[in-house]
C-alpha cells in the first residue's frame, strides 16, 4: 500500500504514488539542470513535460487510476535519460581549460567522497554481476576494487589447498543478497535518499558494462574455463566424499544402536574394530558419530532450505541463522578430527590385539612385513 498524491502536470491533474512522484520529480529536475545551459532549454523541458502528461493521460484512459513507479520507469525509458538527450544538439565545445578544471575538481571530490563512503558501507552479495553467487562482486562493490581482480585472487587462493573455495562458500552462506535498491545503495556506501534511489533504479536499466580490453577479455575467458573445471571436479569429489561419509555414518549408527554388543555380524562394532573404542572411550565414539552426522546433514539441510526458499515455500534464512549453522558445522569439523584420531587409535589397538590372539603361537616368527602390518592395525 502506498501514499498517493495529486500532481498538476501541464495543467492536468494526475494521481500518482508518492515514490513514483519522487522519481518523476528527480527526472524532471535533472532534465532542467541538463538543458539549463542551453538556449531554449526551458522550452525543451516544457515540451517533454507535455509529452509525459500525454503518456499519463493514455494510462488513465486505459483504466489506471493511479500512476505507479513502474509507469514512471517506463516513461523515463521511453523518453530517455538526461545524459542521452543532451549533447545531441549542442554545437559548442568545452574549453580545454574548463575541462581540465572540472576533472581536477572531480578527482578531489571523489577522494573526499571515497573516504566518507567507506564509513557507512555494508557488505552484500551483488546480484547484478554474479558468476556464481555474487560474493566477489559484492566485495568489489564494497571496496571499489575491480571485480576481475577479486576473481583472480580467489582462483589463486584456491590453489593454496582450496582455501579460496572454502572461504567463498562460507561467505556465500553468511552474506545476504542485496535485493532492494536500498541494499544496493548501502553496498556502495551511498546515502539512501529518493534521489539516489531513483538513480539506482534508472541505472539498473543498463547493466554496468566495464570498458573491455584484451586483457580483461582473456582473463574472463580463462576464469570461465577454470570455473568449469572446478565445478566438475567439486561435484565429483563431493559425491565421492558424500557417499563415503554417508556409508560410514550408517554403519556407525546401526552398529551403535541396532546390533547387540559383542556380536560378530559384519557391521557390528566388533567386526569394524571399534569395540575397543566403545569400551575405552565411548563418549569419543559417540562424539565422532554425532559430528559426522552434523557434517553431512547440515549442508543437506541448507541446500534443501535454499531450494525451498527460491520457490518461495519458506522464507530464506536470516543472516543470524546462516551464521549459526555455519558455526555449528565448523564446530563439528573441529570435533571430528581429534575424535577421529582417538577412535582410529583404539581401532589399531583392537586389530593388534586380535592379531596377537590369532597368532599367539607364531609371534616370534612374524617377518618384518607382517610386523609392519601389525603396527598399522591392518591385521
Amino acid at each position: 500500500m502506498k501514499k498517493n498524491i495529486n500532481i498538476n502536470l501541464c495543467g492536468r491533474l494526475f494521481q500518482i504514488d508518492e515514490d513514483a512522484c519522487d522519481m518523476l520529480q528527480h527526472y524532471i529536475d535533472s532534465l532542467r539542470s541538463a538543458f539549463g545551459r542551453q538556449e531554449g532549454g526551458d522550452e525543451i523541458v516544457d515540451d517533454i513535460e507535455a509529452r509525459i502528461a500525454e503518456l499519463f493521460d493514455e494510462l488513465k484512459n486505459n483504466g489506471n487510476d493511479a500512476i505507479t513507479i513502474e509507469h514512471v520507469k517506463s516513461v523515463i525509458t521511453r523518453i530517455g535519460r538526461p545524459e542521452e538527450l543532451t549533447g545531441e544538439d549542442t554545437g559548442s565545445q568545452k574549453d580545454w581549460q574548463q575541462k581540465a578544471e572540472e576533472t581536477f575538481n572531480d578527482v578531489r571530490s571523489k577522494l573526499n567522497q571515497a573516504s566518507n563512503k567507506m564509513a557507512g558501507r555494508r557488505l552484500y552479495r551483488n546480484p547484478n554481476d554474479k558468476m556464481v553467487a555474487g560474493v566477489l562482486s559484492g566485495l568489489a562493490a564494497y571496496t571499489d576494487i575491480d571485480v576481475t581482480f577479486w576473481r583472480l585472487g580467489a582462483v589463486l587462493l584456491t590453489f593454496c589447498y582450496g582455501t579460496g573455495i572454502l572461504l567463498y562458500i562460507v561467505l556465500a552462506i553468511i552474506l545476504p543478497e542485496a535485493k532492494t535498491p536500498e541494499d544496493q545503495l548501502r553496498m556502495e556506501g551511498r546515502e539512501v535518499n529518493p534521489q539516489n534511489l531513483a538513480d539506482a533504479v534508472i541505472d539498473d536499466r543498463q547493466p554496468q558494462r566495464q570498458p573491455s580490453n584484451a586483457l580483461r577479455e582473456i582473463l574472463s575467458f580463462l576464469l570461465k574455463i577454470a570455473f568449469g573445471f572446478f565445478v566438475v571436479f567439486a561435484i565429483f569429489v563431493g559425491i565421492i566424499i558424500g557417499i563415503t561419509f554417508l556409508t560410514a555414518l550408517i554403519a556407525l549408527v546401526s552398529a551403535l544402536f541396532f546390533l547387540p554388543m559383542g556380536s560378530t555380524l559384519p557391521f557390528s562394532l566388533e567386526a569394524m574394530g571399534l569395540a575397543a573404542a566403545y569400551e575405552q572411550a565411548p563418549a569419543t565414539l559417540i562424539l565422532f558419530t554425532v559430528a559426522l552426522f552434523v557434517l553431512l546433514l547440515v549442508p543437506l539441510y541448507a541446500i534443501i532450505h535454499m531450494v525451498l526458499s527460491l520457490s518461495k515455500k519458506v522464507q530464506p534464512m536470516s543472516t543470524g541463522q546462516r551464521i549459526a549453522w555455519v558455526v555449528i558445522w565448523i564446530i563439528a569439523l573441529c570435533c571430528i578430527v581429534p575424535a577421529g584420531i582417538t577412535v582410529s587409535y583404539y581401532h589399531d589397538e583392537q586389530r593388534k590385539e586380535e592379531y596377537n590372539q590369532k597368532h599367539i603361537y607364531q609371534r616370534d616368527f612374524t617377518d618384518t612385513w607382517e610386523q609392519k602390518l601389525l603396527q598399522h592395525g591392518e591385521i
Partner: protein
Amino acid sequence: MNIENAKSQMRKGMLEYCVLLLLKHRPSYASDIILKLKDAELLVVEGTLYPLLTRLKNDGLLSYQWQESTQGPPRKYYALSLEGERFLEGLDAAWSELSNTINYLKNLRPEFHL
C-alpha cells in the same frame, strides 16, 4: 560494439534531414514524428526529438502552432517555413552528392600496378 557506435553516429547526422523530409508532407507533432520514423525503420529515443525540433524552430526552419487535442494536453504542430523548404532543397542536393560519393567508392575496383 564499435559498429553500433558508428551506426549511431550516422543516424545522428541524418536525423535532421529525416525530420525535415517528414514535415514537408504535412505538419505534425513530436510523438507522431517518432511513429513515422519507426515506420521508416529509424529508431530514436523520444527525448532526442524535442531539443532538435526546438533548435530547428530557433533557427527559423520550422514554425509551430498549438492545437487542442482530445487525448491530452495541447500539442505543438510543427511545419516547414519557407526558409525550411529552401534548406531542405539544399539538404536534398547534399544527400545526392554524398550518395554518389559512397556509390563511387563502393564500386571502385582495385587497380593492378605492374
